[in-house]
């Protein structure tokens, strides 16, 4: 009797386990298939986008009328952005695929700038047409490689989950067909950058450069002395001093210390020991001083940098800290590229952060300070529905990364505030920005 009960109980348990195991297995498979399918979608879309892209670039080469060219360029721009987004959805982050991504970015950039340009006034130059032809060839190479990979994927039922697995388990990635295929694509991109930058198609933003700063290279003792100047009472042997590696745009020396309640970190330029980034991390539990008092404190910290003519243009309170932005102002002209940010604790006014990289990496270039337009002439360039509240002269960097003199207008329309930059020489509307600094708290109803 007892034996039978045991046997039947065991049998039920085994059957139950089997059913449970089978169900789990099925669930897991369903999820894997779903993940695989979204990878597959991204991959196949990528190949088809690159395919269309290649055709469209080819078509632009045959086009003669400007009317056709602009929409075609807009289409190319859209396709590159879709292709980049497809790449972003594939598990390629740890694969060398940068050059291909940069290539897509460059085409997009070029196509966008051409699409918005008035081609009647400024038709494509010889160089640019040569560049387009190079792009056509390169996109053809990518297309062929991708088509080949796609063919293998479909032929052999290759799965992206295996790529993912191969990358995750640190297997020698050489065996995976898909990975190999993408490596070949990347290889075909070798040397494209040079041709493209010669043709004016590729334009990488300049790296930050501090070589114009004067001064001797600093050593460890100098670094400690500079750091003490900013952090106050910290013993010299508490600092850890490190130097930046070969990959750094700006050679820096870092001083850091770690106390129980208060940590500090500071980057300074190796050349001359200029403070670039200073951070103090500690808890700030309450607000004792006003933002206004803190802004005066912040100004004294900027003075400590020995920078002159710095004007505060922005102040914001976040919880119990104030963040202030200063720009270089000379002869009533604001130099927006030359900014310094300061973060001040609102409990005792201590400086918690300082960021002067931007300031030091943009030497205050000489600029024609005499605007060709008068203030009233510039004002006429503004949308008449806006009400001008304040105006200044300002130097900004436009999309083409040129430093230009502008009239800055702070304007309102209803409850919105806009910042508008009008080129002071030719009246071009360089930049229109909606100023928004606060947001409703969405977490209020919860508490």
């Amino acid at each position, binding site marked *: 009797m007892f034996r039978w009960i045991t046997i039947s109980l065991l049998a039920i348990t085994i059957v139950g386990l089997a059913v449970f195991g089978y169900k789990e297995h099925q669930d897991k498979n369903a999820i894997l298939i779903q993940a695989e399918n979204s*990878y597959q979608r991204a991959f196949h879309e990528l190949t088809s986008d690159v395919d269309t892209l290649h055709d469209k670039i080819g078509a632009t080469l045959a086009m003669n009328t400007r009317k056709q060219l602009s929409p075609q360029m807009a289409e190319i721009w859209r396709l590159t952005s879709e292709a*980049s*987004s497809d790449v*972003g*959805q594939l598990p*390629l*982050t*740890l694969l060398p695929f940068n050059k291909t991504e*940069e290539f897509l970015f*460059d085409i997009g950039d070029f196509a966008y700038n051409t699409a918005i340009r008035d081609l009647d006034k400024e038709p494509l130059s010889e160089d640019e047409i040569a560049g387009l032809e190079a792009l056509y060839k390169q996109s053809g190479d990518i297309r062929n490689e991708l088509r080949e990979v796609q063919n293998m994927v479909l032929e052999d039922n290759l799965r992206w989950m295996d790529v*993912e697995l191969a*990358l*995750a*388990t*640190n297997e020698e990635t050489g065996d995976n067909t898909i990975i190999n295929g993408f490596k070949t694509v990347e290889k075909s991109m070798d040397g494209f950058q040079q041709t493209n930058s010669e043709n004016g198609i590729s334009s990488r933003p300049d790296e930050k450069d501090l070589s114009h700063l004067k001064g001797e290279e600093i050593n460890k003792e100098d670094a400690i002395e500079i750091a003490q100047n900013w952090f106050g009472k910290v013993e010299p042997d508490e600092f850890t001093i*490190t130097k*930046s*590696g*070969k*990959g*750094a*745009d*700006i050679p*820096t020396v*870092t001083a*850091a210390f*770690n106390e129980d309640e208060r*940590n500090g*970190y500071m*980057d300074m330029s190796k050349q001359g020991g200029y403070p670039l*980034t200073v*951070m103090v*991390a500690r808890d700030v539990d309450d*607000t004792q001083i*006003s*933002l*206004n*008092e803190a802004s005066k404190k912040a100004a004294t910290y900027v003075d400590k940098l020995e920078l002159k003519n710095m004007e505060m243009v*922005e102040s*914001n*309170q*976040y919880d119990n800290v104030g*963040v202030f932005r200063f720009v270089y102002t000379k002869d009533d002209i604001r130099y927006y590229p030359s900014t310094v*940010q300061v*973060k001040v604790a609102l409990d005792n006014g201590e400086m918690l*952060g300082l*960021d002067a990289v931007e300031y030091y990496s943009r030497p205050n270039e000489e600029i024609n300070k005499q605007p060709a337009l008068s203030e009233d002439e510039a004002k006429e360039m503004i949308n008449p529905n806006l009400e001008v*509240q304040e105006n200044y002269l300002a130097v900004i960097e436009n999309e083409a990364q040129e430093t230009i003199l502008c009239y800055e207008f702070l304007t*309102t329309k209803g*409850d919105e*505030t806009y910042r508008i930059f009008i080129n002071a020489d030719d009246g071009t509307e360089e930049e229109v920005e909606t100023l*928004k*600094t*606060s*947001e*409703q*708290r969405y*977490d*209020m*109803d919860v508490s």
Partner: protein
Amino acid sequence: MASKKFVMFALLFALLILPVPEMYNSKKVHAFTSQVIQQGSVGQDVIELQARLKHLGFYSKDVDGVFGWSTYWAARNFQYEFGMEIDGLVGPQMKEKLVKASKGYEKYLPSGDGGGKQTGQNQGQEQQNQGGGGETTSEPTAVNVPGGYSQNDIKLMANAVYGEARGEPYEGQVAVAAVILNRVDSATFPNSISGVIFEPRAFTAVADGQIWLTPNDTAERAVMDAINGMDPSGNATYYFNPNTATSSWIWSRPQIKKIGKHIFCK
């Protein structure tokens, strides 16, 4: 008999609830603190300032306790109308004029309980103001956010930073947040914060679900610092932990510096 009981009960009830708000608030009503209020300020004083300016018709948006652009223009217009120096700073002189001019502004104070959704309707407000409770129980209903970012972007980044680098020194956490932002700017990565964070295999914390841990304040502060321009990583777009890195390719990237356990590179 019944009425006596009722009175007793009412008295008891009144004793229980009334004194506390009454005593704390009676001094605070109609009184700015002594601080100079300027653009970017947040808090009680700003709520009072906005309510008073709204009462006088200078300010038309919600009373949210954040001194933004609309409040700034309102303050300047007030200064203009009252013949004061126009600087947008709310100092003692302006406060005095404002207090004198804006009797009865209380109806614009947000109610203290439900998060201040109302915009000055009178029903149910009366008792609030008589008790003076509207002022001290209400919190600002908005926050300053750095241009171009929302609170939810910041939360998402804080999640990623906490998942990736919670054991790291503070500067290491700021550096990880800065890498996310550098990737958004870079040509070879997606162009949004969510795109960068959820790129497959980009962050281990996303792959293994640690991103959904609840981040602490430090991670959030680190994200704010990075958004406000701090970049201890030196413009890096990659970082890895040399002890656990699985890709040999990552070692070939030009290295910028090491912070905590992470090596940051281009």
